[in-house]
Every structure is written in structure tokens, then in C-alpha cells.
């Protein structure tokens, strides 16, 4: 168990810091996430996703719930500069790093506009409406890009060779 916590603690902590105001709130969120993981481990299906992705999903689900409870104010966010996916990742646990590299290859298969919208919604946590406002797009277009982009990533994750430990479809 200690090895497992060691492997994923930094990932969960980093996600929690990004989705919360930090400090005690981030610590509470991390504890909730690990309790959820202890309790829901039997939902993990190694044929559908890697362990790293499953843990990130459980963490994100819990953090998104918390964010909604905090009732973020729509439209107030500043839109961040795009993250350069070609930047090499920092020193991380091998499992996390491998999975991140695999996911980068999946994202590069998307149209640039979809990449940008997905980055703003998934990574920066902007609401669909605030993305629409910032990019001057109809809300429906933002939702369509998100839906198609995530479906594309999902398909690539399930494609030949995309199983955990294998190579992603490029």
C-alpha cells in the first residue's frame, strides 16, 4: 500500500492543488480521493484504462464535485496561454510519465481548435460558457468540440495497441 501511495500521491496532490484553493481544502480533498480509491478499487478494469488514468479519473470526479459546490463564478476566469505539449515532463513516477506521454500522443491527433478547447475545459477547469465567451464562439460549438474531442480520445484509447502498457494510436 505504501508503494502505491508513493507512486500516485504526487499526481493526486497536484490535481487537488489545481482544483482547490490549496492548503487545508486541498488536503481534505486528497483524503476524500484516497478513501474513494480504497472503496472503489473493484470498479477498476485494466482492459479499459491504465491504473494511472483510473486514479486520475476518480480524483477529477471528486474534485469537480467540490468545485461545483464552491459555486465558481462563471465568466470571471482569465484564459491561460496554451500549454506546449512538446515540453518534456518533470521527473515523475514512471507509470505516470508513461501514461502522460501516451495521452500527449492521443491529443496531438485532434484538430488544434479541439485541443485548445479541451485544454481549457479539462486542464484549466473553465466552464463551457466561459470558454465560449473568451473565444467568441457559440456555446453549442464549444460543447460540440468537447464532445467530439473526448470521443476521439476515447476511441484512440481503445484502439489497437492502446491498451495500458502498449503504444497509443497516433
Amino acid at each position, binding site marked *: 500500500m505504501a508503494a502505491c501511495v508513493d507512486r500516485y500521491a504526487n499526481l493526486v496532490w497536484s490535481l487537488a492543488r489545481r482544483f482547490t484553493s490549496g492548503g487545508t481544502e486541498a488536503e481534505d480533498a486528497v483524503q476524500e480521493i484516497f478513501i474513494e480509491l480504497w472503496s472503489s478499487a473493484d470498479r477498476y478494469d485494466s482492459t479499459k484504462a491504465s491504473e494511472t488514468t483510473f486514479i486520475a479519473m476518480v480524483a477529477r470526479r471528486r474534485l469537480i464535485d467540490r468545485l461545483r459546490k464552491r459555486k465558481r463564478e462563471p465568466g470571471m476566469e482569465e484564459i491561460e496561454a496554451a500549454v506546449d505539449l512538446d515540453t518534456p515532463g*518533470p521527473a515523475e513516477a514512471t507509470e505516470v510519465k508513461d501514461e502522460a506521454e501516451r495521452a500527449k500522443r492521443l491529443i496531438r491527433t485532434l484538430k488544434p481548435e479541439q485541443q485548445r478547447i479541451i485544454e481549457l475545459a479539462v486542464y484549466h477547469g473553465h466552464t*463551457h460558457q466561459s470558454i465560449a465567451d473568451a473565444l467568441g464562439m457559440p456555446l453549442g460549438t464549444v460543447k460540440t468540440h468537447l464532445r467530439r474531442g473526448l470521443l476521439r480520445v476515447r476511441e484512440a484509447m481503445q484502439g489497437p495497441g492502446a491498451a495500458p502498457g502498449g503504444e497509443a494510436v497516433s
Partner: protein
Amino acid sequence: MSAQERIVDLLTSRATEGLSEEEAMELDDTLHHLTDMREDELELAAAAVDLAFESAAGDVEPMPGHLKQRILEQGRAHLKSRPVNVTRFPRAVKPESRLLDGRNIGWWVAAAMLVLALWSPWSRQDKTPPPASTLAEQRETLLRDAGDAIRVAWTKPEVPGYEKVDGDVVWSSERQAGFMRLRGLPTNRNTVEQYQLWIVDPSRDERPIDGGVFDIPAGSSEVIIPIDAKLRADNPKVFAITLEQPGGVVVSDGPLLVVAPVDA
């Protein structure tokens, strides 16, 4: 928009900005129409995307040591607490469990199974477990056999909608086991909210101990719920129930819906 498209739309929202309570209920009601994917596949896709951007942005930061220590303690307590709930035993040893395919997560559960095996009196003698007793029988056995077992009644709740709740809590500090008996607690929708038990033990900590989450199924008159304390509770003073998000929380904002004070 077809029903299928609407569900995918809701799943996309759930994977990115989350759902309102109304949307979550709508998804819950319509999810059975989803035919060509599993409900968590878009969330897994979003998680993969998040990993990629987080790695590229260099955002990964080490978790503070004290927090890591607390999580390890909670994990150990969680594993130890599992044998208390006898009804979970058959599920935990199910050989076809997909969990066994996993690498590290599988290890966690393997550890839980080992604990279960060591605790199980029949595991070393007879491979065929005796028929599991009902929760009502287990509760009676605990009351009868545990010398320190206490039984405390829920006080008459004042929170609107919960006035008719009654029943009691049985707890043995020696065995770290107990049961709640509840009548009149309203049914919950477990995809939207779940009940959570809290055990207040001031001798241990100011923060209440998580006693586990549970559901009240529709149509049930009286339910008996095993207490699943995540940490040791040696001197409980109050048992209380709140309604929380699915899976429960670490710190509750309340309100306390039903309360059983030990010294009342």
C-alpha cells in the same frame, strides 16, 4: 437531439465542468439507454488529457509528508475495518474479480483479502464458509457476546423531513464493530447523495470519525447497517448521520440529520 446524444452530452459535461443536481438526476434516469459505451469512458478520456497537460506544464508537486502519512493510516484502518462487515466477505474473495487483473490496485485488495483470511476463523479449517447470518442476527450476537457493547437510541430529529426517524446504534469498542438500526429515514438516490455516519470520539480527535456511507433503498421499513469506522473509536460520545455527495466526504458541512448521544 436523440436520447443517446443527450446522454453523451451529459457525460461530456460530467467529465469536464460537472453536472447540476437536476442534470445528474436526468442522467441517472436515462443512463440505461446508453448502449455503445460505458458510462465512465469520457471521464477516463478527460483524465488522460489532464495527465498529458499536467505533465507538459510541469505542475506535479510532491505531496507533503504529513498528508501522505495520514493517508497511509487511513488506508490501513480501512483495510482493517473490512472484516467487520461480514456481508462483504464473499465479494472480496470473488476469484473472477477484475481487480485481480490490475497491478497495484490489485495489491491493495490482495492485502485486504489477506487480512480477511487471517481474521476468518474458518479459513484455516474448513474451506466451506458457514451460511452468513443476517445483519439482524449479527447485531443481536454483538449485543449478547460483546461485554462492552452499548445500545443508544437516536434522539427525535428536528430536521424537517426526518422527524419520524427512530431506531438505535449498537457499538462495541472492544471489537470495533457496530450496527445502526433505522426506521423512517427517507430513501436517497445514491448517484446524487449518500448518507454518511460520523462517530464523535473526543478522546481521540476533535474531528469526527467517518463511520461509512450507506443507502436507504426504496420501500424499506427498517434497515440495519453495519458501521464501517475508518479509524478506531474507543470512546464514542455521539453517532450522527449527514447526507453527502456519493462516496461521502472527509469533513462534513452538515447538517446533522439524526443524532444518537451516548450519555443521553
